[in-house]
Each structure stands twice: as structure tokens, then as C-alpha cells.
């Protein structure tokens, strides 16, 4: 693995070396390393690109890393990864994709991740997207996440896209059974003429299920962002979505939250706010000796932390 690829790996998975536990590293369309454990198996799909990750019931405190890196300009791929998380498991899954495009051709990774989360299983899923390279070729990622959570299951999903992705369309769909819970935290920063669209669709079908979708984003320069979230309360449940965005320069942001109650005991809330950095925040930090630019950086870093 060369230096560029190592940097990508560090950015998307915080990996400096081969991770402990189960992992599958995909580099430029091929497998660059894999490890399985007694409880976690990784199997290559036969009918299409991708892998099945099978986590045995009662697997506790284990992790799976499945980073994808692309450093070859012009590579386009669609990869299907299916996670089967056994009952009562408690695991951390770290995905993420880094594209370095120094060429003129478009590089694109479409990752379709499907999660089958068993009864009372607990999953933390972290996904980071990062792009680098100064070629004219675009870096495009369109992640799709499909989640099914059985009774009492829990998914905490954390997605981060801070830099370098020219175009992204993220689509997340979730179905929750009784007492299932999902918490999604999204952080996005776009700059230049980038475009990012994220859409969440959560069906709370089970009794006492709950969903919390929190998005924080910053749009700079001429970039465009669209945030769509639809939370359907189909049973006695509670749902909350929150979109908080900072707009800068000539950027454009749309936030379109939708909540739908199909049951009398569905309690749903949505909040959406878009605005520029408050002048008084800049002034406060400037009275502490920061320049306006330093103050702006601190405010954005804090906001997306």
C-alpha cells in the first residue's frame, strides 16, 4: 500500500496499521486484506461485487473494519455489503470510503450496505467519506444504507463527510420493530461547487420504537446541499429529526423534513434551522484575540465536532 492509500485509510477509518479484529480492506476494486474471527465471518459475494459480514449471536465487544479506498482515476464501482448481526451482539462497525483522484477521469464508489440487526443486538456504525487529489476528475460517492432492526435492537449510525467529495447522494432507509431504536448523526461540509443530498426514511413499525435523526452541515463557496428526512410513526413510538446548517458565501441549502403520524400514540418532532454564523460569535472570539478567519474556523470545527 502506498502513502496516498495509507493516508486515505487513516482518514476514513482512523487506521494507521492493520486493525485488530475482523476487517476487509478494498483497494481499487480488489481485496487488499481480510481477517475473520471466531465470531465474525466475511464472505465474498458470488453474484455481484461485495461481501457478507456474518456476526454470530452474543458476539460482544468486537469490531469490524471494512474501509474502501480508490486511488486509481476513472474507477467506477458499485459494491454490496450485507451485515447480519446476531441476537444480543454488541459490536462496532467502521466503514468509510476514501477517493484520491489525481487524474481527469471520474472516480465513483456506490456502496450499498444492508443491515439485518437481530433481537436486542447493539451496533455502532461509523462511516466516513473523504476525497483528495487535484486532478480534474470528479470524486463521487453514493452510499445507500438499508436497515432492519428486530425487537429491542439498537443502531447508532454516525456519518461524516468533511472534505473532497464532489457529489454525493446518500440514502438511508430503516424499519424498526418493537422497542427498536435508531440514532443517526450526520456531519457534512461542502465547498467549491460540491453537491450533497442526504435522504432519510424511517418507518417506526414497532411498539415503543424510536428514531432520532440529527444532521449538522456547513455549506461554503458555491456548494449545494439538500436534506430530506421522512419519519413515519406507524405505532406507539417517538421520532425526532433535526437539521442544523450553517450557510456561507454563495452556497444553497434546502432542508425538507417530513413527519407522518399513522398512529394516535406516535409522538413526532422535527426541527430545521439554516443560517449564517452569528456575528456576535465571531466578535466574541475576536475579543479573545482571534482573527475573523480563525474565529470562523473555530466555530465551524466546533459545530461539526
Amino acid at each position: 500500500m502506498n502513502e496516498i492509500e495509507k493516508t486515505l485509510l487513516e482518514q476514513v477509518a482512523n487506521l494507521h496499521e492493520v486493525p485488530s479484529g475482523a476487517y476487509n480492506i478494498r483497494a481499487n476494486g480488489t481485496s487488499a486484506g481480510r481477517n475473520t474471527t471466531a465470531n465474525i465471518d466475511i464472505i465474498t459475494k458470488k453474484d455481484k461485487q461485495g461481501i457478507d459480514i456474518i456476526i454470530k449471536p452474543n458476539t460482544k465487544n468486537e469490531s469490524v473494519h471494512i474501509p474502501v479506498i480508490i486511488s486509481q482515476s476513472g474507477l467506477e464501482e458499485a459494491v454490496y455489503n450485507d451485515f447480519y448481526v446476531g441476537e444480543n451482539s454488541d459490536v462496532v462497525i467502521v466503514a468509510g470510503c476514501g477517493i484520491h483522484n489525481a487524474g481527469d477521469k471520474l472516480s465513483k464508489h456506490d456502496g450499498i450496505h444492508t443491515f439485518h440487526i437481530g433481537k436486542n443486538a447493539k451496533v455502532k456504525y461509523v462511516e466516513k467519506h473523504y476525497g483528495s487529489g487535484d486532478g480534474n476528475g470528479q470524486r463521487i460517492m453514493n452510499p445507500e444504507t438499508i436497515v432492519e432492526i428486530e425487537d429491542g435492537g439498537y443502531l447508532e449510525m454516525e456519518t461524516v463527510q468533511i472534505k473532497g467529495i464532489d457529489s454525493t447522494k446518500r440514502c438511508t432507509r430503516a424499519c424498526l420493530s418493537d422497542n427498536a431504536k435508531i440514532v443517526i448523526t450526520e456531519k457534512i461540509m461542502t465547498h467549491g461547487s460540491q453537491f450533497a443530498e442526504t435522504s432519510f426514511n424511517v418507518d417506526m413499525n414497532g411498539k415503543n420504537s424510536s428514531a432520532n435523526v440529527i444532521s449538522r452541515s456547513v455549506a461554503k463557496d458555491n456548494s449545494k446541499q439538500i436534506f430530506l428526512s421522512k419519519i413515519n410513526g406507524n405505532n406507539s413510538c417517538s421520532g425526532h429529526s433535526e437539521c442544523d446548517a450553517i450557510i456561507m458565501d454563495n452556497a444553497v441549502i434546502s432542508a425538507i423534513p417530513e413527519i407522518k403520524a399513522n398512529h394516535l400514540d406516535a409522538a413526532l418532532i422535527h426541527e430545521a434551522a439554516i443560517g449564517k454564523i452569528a456575528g456576535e460569535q465571531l466578535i466574541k472570539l475576536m475579543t479573545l484575540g482571534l482573527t475573523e478567519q480563525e474565529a470562523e474556523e473555530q466555530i465551524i470545527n466546533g459545530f461539526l465536532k
Partner: protein
Amino acid sequence: MLELRDLTFSVQENNKEKVIINHLNYKIENNKFTVITGPNGSGKSTLAKLIAGIEKATSGQILYDGQDITNMSITERAKLGIGYAFQQPVRFKGIKVIDLVRLAAGEKLSVSGVCEYLSEVGLCARDYINRDVDASLSGGELKRIEIASVLARKTPISVFDEPEAGIDLWSFQNLIKVFENMKLKQESSIVIISHQERILNIADEILLLVNGEIKSYGSKDKMLSEVLQDVEGCCFYSRNNN
């Protein structure tokens, strides 16, 4: 020493010029505790903002140790040594108390270093350092953190705009000790805009501002009776408010 020379600030209101600070001349001596008081709308907060550089003077000069800082930015003045505490502390999403105090100190203070400043303003530090400086904090807590952020700067001159504003009397009783301690140390110049008799009581100098002009100024002993007499019958200045 901070010197205000013929300082004037005016705004346009309904196409008419409205003078907020009117040809003001005053010298704030080193290591003195100066309280600026006066009725609402007399220009006190504007004067504080002019010193910090948040507002720009229409005419006149501000000199800091003989150096003309009238055209300096907020950042330049802050770096030179002017501290400023907001009347309404600013809230931030994602900036923690520990981050704010560290930014103020201009160095990566240790956790115990940050705690020291918070303890100084009467906050039990460990409960606060990792909290966001946002709406989850009460008005009194935000005020103390605001003051701690100014203390951490260790500037030769600090301006506090109405530290009592927006906090209850009980919290203020505790907060006043912070200023009494500052006064005891006499390490830097403190300028406080205040209506509170207990703050006036610890002043070296009191400046009474009315309609953007200095009505009178002088030592506490000279000024206290005048200020209190001036507002006889006004509940905000009740002699028995302690």
C-alpha cells in the same frame, strides 16, 4: 493607561444624526478600578464597545499607553491587551467551556489550569469544563463563564459590561465576590459598567454618564453620595438593596 480624547459616536436615525457619545474626554489610570454608571440609554455599553473596537468612533481618539488605537480592529486591540466581557454572553454550538477558556488564554491550558479560572468565578469546575457553551447553561452560569474567559486572558485592562444584567440577586451576591477579589489583587485596570451599589462601593473611580456626556467623575468617596442622591427614590439604586 487608556485615554479617551474628544470621543464621539453617532448613528443615523430617521435621517437624523443621533449622538450617543458626545465629545467625551477621560483617562483610565493603570491598575485602577473604574465603574461607569448612569441611567439607561446614557451610552455606557456603547462606550465599552468603542473601547473594545466593536463599534467605531465617529470622531475623536482612543489611546492605549500613548498609542492611537482608534482605527485598530477588535482582534488587534485584544492582542494589545484589552479584554471585554459581553453583557449578554454569546452561545456556541459545539464549543465547550474548556475550549473557550483555552482560546481566551491563547495556549493549551491544562485541565487544572482551566479549572482554576472557573473556580475563581465560583463554578465547580469539573461539572462544567466539558459542557457546551450553549443554551443548556443558565444565564448566571454563562455570565460566570464569560467572566472566566476574560480573566484567562490576563489583559492589562478588562471592560465588563453590566455583569449583573440578566442574573438573579442571589447569583449576583456570589458574583460580586469575584470583583472584590479582582480589586484586592490590583494587578490590572478594571472597568465595570454597573448600576449596583456594591460594585460602586469597591470602585476607586466612578464616572457618571448621562446622555453620552460625563456628568461628573471622581473618587468613590466623592461620587457615591452624588450618584445615590441623583437617583433618590429609584428602586434600582435603593440604599438598602443589600
